[in-house]
């Protein structure tokens, strides 16, 4: 079971089956009340965010998933170029490119900008989200 929530007092809503969200994959879901959420699975753990970018309301969860970029700095401050960080996948809002860390929902450069996250519970092949 995956429990990832500080909001466990909220209503749990059945949103998907476990099979719907593969490792490294996602499922973006429309709920009945005009709320869309993106479910993501990374290293076995599930994450849920509202599909609404704090920048200009873009559909962040429908963007490209791409590993975060690091700049490798050698001793003496020389740059050894760019590299992907496989432990820090990002969701990229397709409207203007804001990148959010999949594991926290925070903007990769300015963490005070963040996607609205929801608690997730996975049990018996069902995925519930705390709304």
């Amino acid at each position, binding site marked *: 079971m995956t429990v990832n929530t500080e909001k466990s007092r909220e209503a*749990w809503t*059945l949103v998907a089956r476990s099979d719907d969200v593969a490792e490294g994959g996602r499922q973006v879901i429309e709920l009945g009340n005009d709320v869309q959420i993106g479910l993501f699975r990374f290293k076995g753990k599930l994450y849920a965010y509202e599909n609404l970018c704090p920048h*200009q*309301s873009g559909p962040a969860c429908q963007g*490209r998933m791409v590993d975060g970029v690091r700049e490798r700095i050698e001793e003496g401050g020389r740059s050894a170029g760019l590299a992907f960080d496989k432990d820090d996948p990002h969701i990229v809002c397709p409207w203007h490119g804001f990148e959010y860390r999949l594991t926290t929902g925070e903007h990769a450069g300015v963490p005070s900008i963040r996607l609205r996250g929801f608690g997730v519970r996975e049990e018996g092949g069902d995925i519930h989200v705390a709304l």
Partner: protein
Amino acid sequence: MTTTHQPKPLPTQEITTRTHTADILANARRDTDRYGLDKVFICDVDSHHAELNSWKDIISYVEDPVLRDIAQQMMIHRPQAGQLALSNYKAGLALQDAGARIPHQSGLAESVPDTGDARDVELVRRAMDAMSIDVQVVFPQPMLEIGLHPEKGIAVQLMKAYNRWFVENVLPKDPRIKTMLGLPFEDPQASLETIREFGDHPDVLGFLVTSQRHAGVHRNEYMPLYAELEERGLPIGFHAGPTWEDSMTSTMNRFLSVHAMSFVTCNMTHLTNWIVNGIPERFPRLKTIWIESGLAWLPFMMQRLDHEYLMRQSEAPLLRRLPSDYMRQMYYTSQPIEITDMALLESTFNAMNAKDTLLYSSDWPHWDFDVPGRIMGIPFLDEQAKLNILGGNARKVFDL
């Protein structure tokens, strides 16, 4: 407690270059509902279509038979020349989509029914519908780089061909589509002819100087253009463009840096020449629009030029007021509006008298576009100022 909704996976799980514009911009509908934008007159003063899809047709409008043949042969015999023959497409611009992270910048590749119209007509309509836009001023994309073409004669021929193609094949297709046509600025006579040929067209709202870096806009040979535009009551727009080849940007290693600086310095240069040489005094009724450089540069320029002018008045003897006073009599498009510090933005709006001088623009489908809700969400603007910026000011500038 467990409740059961009817969760449905979205049909579009990942937005790509092939996604329908309505799906990419679906969330813009939220702004429409929240702010009642369906009831607001919205004029988008800067948006684009991808003329590369129609390049073969555009080339057929090139007047010079030798150049036309060269281009047509290129399209037959050179791989990938089909959309680029004769153009000045720069490899660096392909970095705009941030490695396909921002897919609509890469060229909207969604399917469009074959109606016989240029596919861009349908794409423009889809964007207008998604953003509740009533009138959209549409410009080309790569053709805006025409001011950077290394061969002036080709630049002039291409601009003329594109203009004729656009007026014949796009403008008649939808009454909501308007344009400001680019001038073949390297050739002042051809520019004058362009204004005379299309200046009476009801959907041609004005004329543009595009991405031009190397012409002093105050040179005497351009005065007949400005006089003609003033006489006709048509505005002149300066649409900035980016290049990696400004001496300053040539040191830069990231597109972010080039994009941040190159548009702005392009317009800064022309605006400085425009004011210091007293063009607003010579043509007081000529309406001038500065397009696509955001707004943050304006307070800087106001302070900088006022400061210099007071000490060196004899170098700008035509001026009767401070440079910033002339700047407040010109117009500016909003995109990309720099909303990162609300206090700075408010000062900028005050400095430029934005409620009367700012014109909403989306710049769709470019990577840094702004939806109309961007303006509605600015907390320090009153309702009237928002309506002015979204469409009221444009109504006045363009006599809509």
